[in-house]
């Protein structure tokens, strides 16, 4: 049986009829066609599916689509403005923090949720903030460097 939900994705209002047993991840990818959100493990462990729901980083592979009713959701596609990369994305490029890229959308969204809440995090706080995002190829040194750099850029822009 389907249920109707209405939510906001990357600033756009969406009304949809969804199966009750699909995950938010599958809704975002298969029904909205937003392929930036990845599926790694499907069991909440890797963080590739991270999206921001009402300001909080959440693993969309273990979150039901019906529960997103009334929520505001940001996926990686929602970060750039008019084709300009978001400062966090820009810093990842500049610091060489991206290799295969599979983990990156999730990691960047965890970083965004962290920086929205804490504009000047310590290295320890950054590590805690992205502990749920596994990267198999870049390693974390450059990722942490990129997040530090983007924190500075974002603070200056204020």
């Amino acid at each position, binding site marked *: *049986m389907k*249920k109707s939900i209405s939510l906001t994705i990357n600033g756009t209002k969406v009304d949809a009829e969804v*199966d*009750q*047993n*699909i*995950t938010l991840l*599958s809704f975002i990818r298969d029904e909205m066609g937003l392929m930036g959100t990845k599926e790694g493990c*499907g*069991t*909440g*462990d890797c*963080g590739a599916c*991270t999206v921001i729901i009402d300001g*909080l*980083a*959440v*693993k969309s*592979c*273990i*979150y*039901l689509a*019906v*529960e997103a009713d009334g929520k505001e959701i940001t996926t990686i596609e929602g970060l750039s403005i008019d084709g300009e990369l978001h400062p966090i994305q820009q810093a990842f490029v500049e610091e060489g923090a991206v290799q295969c890229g599979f983990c990156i959308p999730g990691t960047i969204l*965890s970083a965004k*949720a*962290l920086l929205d809440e804490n504009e000047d995090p310590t290295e320890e706080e950054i590590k*805690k*903030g992205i*502990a*749920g*995002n*596994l990267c198999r190829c870049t390693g974390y040194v450059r990722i942490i460097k990129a997040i530090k750099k983007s924190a500075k850029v974002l603070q200056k822009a204020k």
Partner: protein
Amino acid sequence: MLKTFEYLQPKTLEEALSMMKSCKGSFRLIAGGTDVIVQIRSGKTPPDYLISLKALNKELGILEEKEEGLDIGALVTHRILEKSPTIQKEYAALYDGVSQVGSVQVRNVGTIGGNVCSSLPSADSAAPLLILGAKLNIVGDREESICIEEFFTGPGENILKNNQILKSIFIPKLPKNSNSAYEKLGRRKAMEIPVVGAASYIQVDKKTGICLDARIALASSAPTPIRCYKAEQTLVGQSAEKEIFVKAGKLAAQEANPRTSFRATEEYRRSVIPVLVERSLSRSLNRIKK
């Protein structure tokens, strides 16, 4: 797509309870879903219905400081608890526990009620709640309050009946000159359920340094989270210092009944319990001194 189930979302606690009573077919409650959805995704046959508690925030989602202690609604997430200054300061063992559940994304969604009701021996909130003297407020045909010691009955099992919901958890205010801590040993620092977890609470006489009261509890050390009463008794009346903490740790290991799993062997767990208990007691003591 997951195997089919129907998702029901009652708007009040009363409606939820009556849905549970009249439900034709199997059902399961879902709060944050970080355990339930993972289990369904890993192929466990889902129930016919998932009854969601998500809309009951008004009744089940409140964190309230009272004169006698702290009322934590079952739907309060680990993240909210972790950020609460009251919990950081006054219920430090609970802070240690909930701030180490999974990762931020899991703590943003996972609830303390779900952690307790999943009733795994490894639940990171359980040992802290045991040593903090928590009471569970359960609703069903009637409302009752029980000590958390009476709740767990086996791995993944508890006393809740099919028509009962955990409504809230009450933790009494700690007396003066007391504090608590929880030590979690994992194979890595984050995203890991404990190989062993040790929570402790002690109260000391500030003048003499004598231990007036003590409670010790372990996670991942028996079929359920447990209190270690013998270890506790050995502390009372003694000078609170490392020597007696080590002795208490050894007694706690005797009271434990750990098993071998892919995370660690029984022998390993038994040999790290004393270390963790001692560390936990030392931290509780240091926190009193601060």
